[in-house]
């Protein structure tokens, strides 16, 4: 079958799959940002219990495979009474995993804000919460944007695993098409290109733009 005809026949399904991938990606990114921020801050807490909880979470999610975590959330948690539909389980697993990496970026960026900023904020008598929210986090945000650019691409790539719990994303559709056509080169070649275009021509330029506009906002550019 010529490639053009292949696309004509299956293009619609690739499109549907891509749409699900985009939605999974966006939701997983939101989850990971929330997880990263909370666990990154908890990791820096002076309360030992809070800090240990965050450390253990980060260790477990970074130290084990995303696929295993996905299966746990989808297949094992129901045994403990927590049942998520496959779509939700998909982006939650990816988001919680990537959020653990993000938490370390948050912590690193907060530590990278010069000590003088904390002191100046204290000298105008800000509370610890005000210091964090008004002075430190805005600066940490700009510092951590470049590494987040990489992480966001990892999130995008990570969503391909949700196909294994039968979320009908791009990868799921590609596998289905392959099973019925045996046109592996065309099928996975197309999937490959779509993932690449997403990453390099949509996400990367967007993150760059975001970085630049944030840098300008704090007067660094």
């Amino acid at each position, binding site marked *: 079958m010529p490639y053009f005809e292949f696309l004509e026949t299956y293009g619609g399904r690739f499109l549907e799959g891509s749409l699900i991938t985009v939605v999974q990606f966006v939701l997983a990114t939101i989850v990971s940002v929330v997880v990263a921020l909370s666990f990154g801050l908890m990791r820096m807490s002076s309360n030992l219990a809070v800090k240990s909880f965050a450390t253990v979470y980060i260790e477990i999610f970074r130290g084990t495979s995303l696929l295993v975590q996905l299966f746990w959330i989808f297949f094992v948690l129901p045994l403990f009474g927590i049942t998520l539909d496959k779509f939700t389980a998909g982006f939650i697993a990816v988001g919680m995993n990537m959020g653990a990496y993000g938490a370390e970026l948050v912590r690193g960026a907060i530590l990278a804000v010069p000590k*003088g900023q904390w002191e100046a904020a*204290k*000298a*105008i*008598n800000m509370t610890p919460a005000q210091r964090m929210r008004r*002075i430190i986090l*805005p600066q940490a945000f700009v510092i951590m944007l470049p590494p987040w650019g990489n992480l966001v691409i990892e999130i995008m790539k990570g969503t391909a695993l949700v196909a294994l719990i039968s979320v009908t994303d791009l990868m799921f559709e590609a596998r289905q098409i392959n099973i019925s056509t045996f046109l592996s080169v065309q099928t996975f070649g197309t999937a490959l290109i779509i993932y690449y275009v997403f990453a390099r021509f949509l996400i990367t330029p967007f993150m760059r733009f975001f970085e630049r506009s944030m840098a300008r906002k*704090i*007067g*660094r550019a």
Partner: protein
Amino acid sequence: MTEDMSQYPLRLEGDNIPMVRFQNVRKSYGALTVLDDLNLDVDAGEMVTIIGPSGSGKTTVLRMLMTLETINGGVIYVDGEPLTHMEKGGVLVPANPAHIRRIRSKIGMCFQHFNLFPHMTALQNCMEGPVQVLGLPRKEAEERSMELLQMVGMADKRDQHPSRLSGGQQQRVAIARALAMRPKVMLFDEVTSALDPEVIGEVTNVIRKLVDAHNLTMLMVTHQMGFAKDISDRVCFFFNGAIEEQAAPSDLFENPQRERTQQFLNAVLESN
């Protein structure tokens, strides 16, 4: 190691209480004792300058008063009340955060490296404390901040971020930011040391204005002996974590009593 706290008054009373009192204050980092049994009073409206060799503990004195460092012994009083301690059951116990914040509101500080908030304009830097901490309405905070930016000659740069300002300009904004909180005590830690020689004057002129206004109590660490001599009411020479000698500037600079003071002043004069 535990100190007998009953020797410290719960608050300073009388007609002539100092604005700042360090009483038997001790500071150490691990085994290194940085300040040993410091006793220093600063009167309301007085400008006291601290000089001394590197590592003698000058910065530490200011940082303890700003509560950027904790102390290991003694009590610091501000405006008659203990800063580092609070009363509980008739004796002083280490202060809780709420108490520290209440007393700290009387103190402002300017740093060697300015430490302006880079994500805010000059005006926003000055308004941040009044709006967020004092809860002033934005309009009032802006008026107050503009008045101060005017005073330090930075009104025309109100909308610039710090990265667009020279060192001297940044330091002037930093002074305005501290004053916007209406402190009773201002601390200056080598505020001209990071500046190019030609812009030092614009910052020292601002400090001169503050001295002339007579309503602030000031503690300043500086290596500029000429400036210290000009504007101080009293100069303290620190050596090895203790006050070696203190006197009116004319006495201390022209007629130092202690050998170490003489040596230090000679060394400074030679290097200039």
